[in-house]
């Protein structure tokens, strides 16, 4: 499994989205890497790629809203990290349009997306929950 419980940050809605994101990415990678001709897979790949891109952006928005809600002090920096990655996704989208939906490019995109997301969820997002936990401490 790509998703691991150790990636949980302890905020139910965020964890649910992360898990869904990892499951979708995992399914996508399985299709990408499956045997068989590439050409017939292209329409499906194209659809999923655009879906993944949209889903990541939607998730970022929802995570940013949550950070706003709890008054997370590093939300601007976090947003900046999201923006940088969104622009990398956009660069790939442009490359796909220009160079065609080549298998190697799709593999390159998904490898990077997977590693980036794992680090983001296991490391950067963890700091949000550390802050949320510190708020709970204050309430007691």
């Amino acid at each position, binding site marked *: *499994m*790509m998703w691991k419980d*150790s990636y949980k940050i302890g905020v139910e809605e965020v964890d649910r989205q992360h898990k869904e994101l990892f499951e979708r990415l*995992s399914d996508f*990678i*399985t299709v*990408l*890497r499956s045997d068989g001709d590439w050409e017939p897979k292209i329409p499906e790949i194209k659809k999923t790629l655009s879906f993944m891109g949209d889903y990541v952006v939607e998730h970022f928005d929802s995570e940013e809203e949550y950070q706003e809600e709890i008054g997370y002090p590093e939300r601007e920096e976090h947003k900046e990290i999201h923006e940088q990655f969104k622009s990398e996704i956009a660069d790939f989208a442009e490359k796909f349009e220009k160079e065609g939906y080549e*298998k*190697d*490019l799709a*593999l*390159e*995109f*998904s*490898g*990077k997306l*997977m*590693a*980036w997301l*794992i*680090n983001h969820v*296991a*490391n950067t997002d*963890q700091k949000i929950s550390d802050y949320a936990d510190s708020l709970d401490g204050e309430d007691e």
Partner: protein
Amino acid sequence: MKAEFVNPIYQATSDVLNTMLGLEVTRGDLRLVEDDAIVGSDANVIIGLTGSLNGSIHYSFSEEMTLEMVRIMSGMEMDEIDKFVSSAVGEIANIISGNATTYLAENDFDCDIVSPQIMIGQNKSFSMANDQALVIPLETEIGDFEINLSVKESE
């Protein structure tokens, strides 16, 4: 080359491999390479540094370790270093280097990293960015690997 560049890189490597892959990293004895090419391994990721430090960080992993790192991340068995595997490992090196620049900045070395160059293939040798490189040997439970650090302070 100063050994004080080593700790930020080691710290970042240890943090990232621990949070991303659940690995414990231990460091072996440093080695200095002079006027010689860096001998790579099966998967090589080279990341340039610019700013108050100039040079490059070269990560080299065996095929076995590369495949195992990607298996841990994806939960899927990998049997060759294809574009998916090389891109995932390139991103790990990119993340480590990015975190290392944060630690370097704490020691007043402000640098930026340049997008990774990934080279796959056995026994390649690489010319060094400077005339000296420090080799940092690292050990994990899924294999040993090396980081070659070839940097100097900008004039």
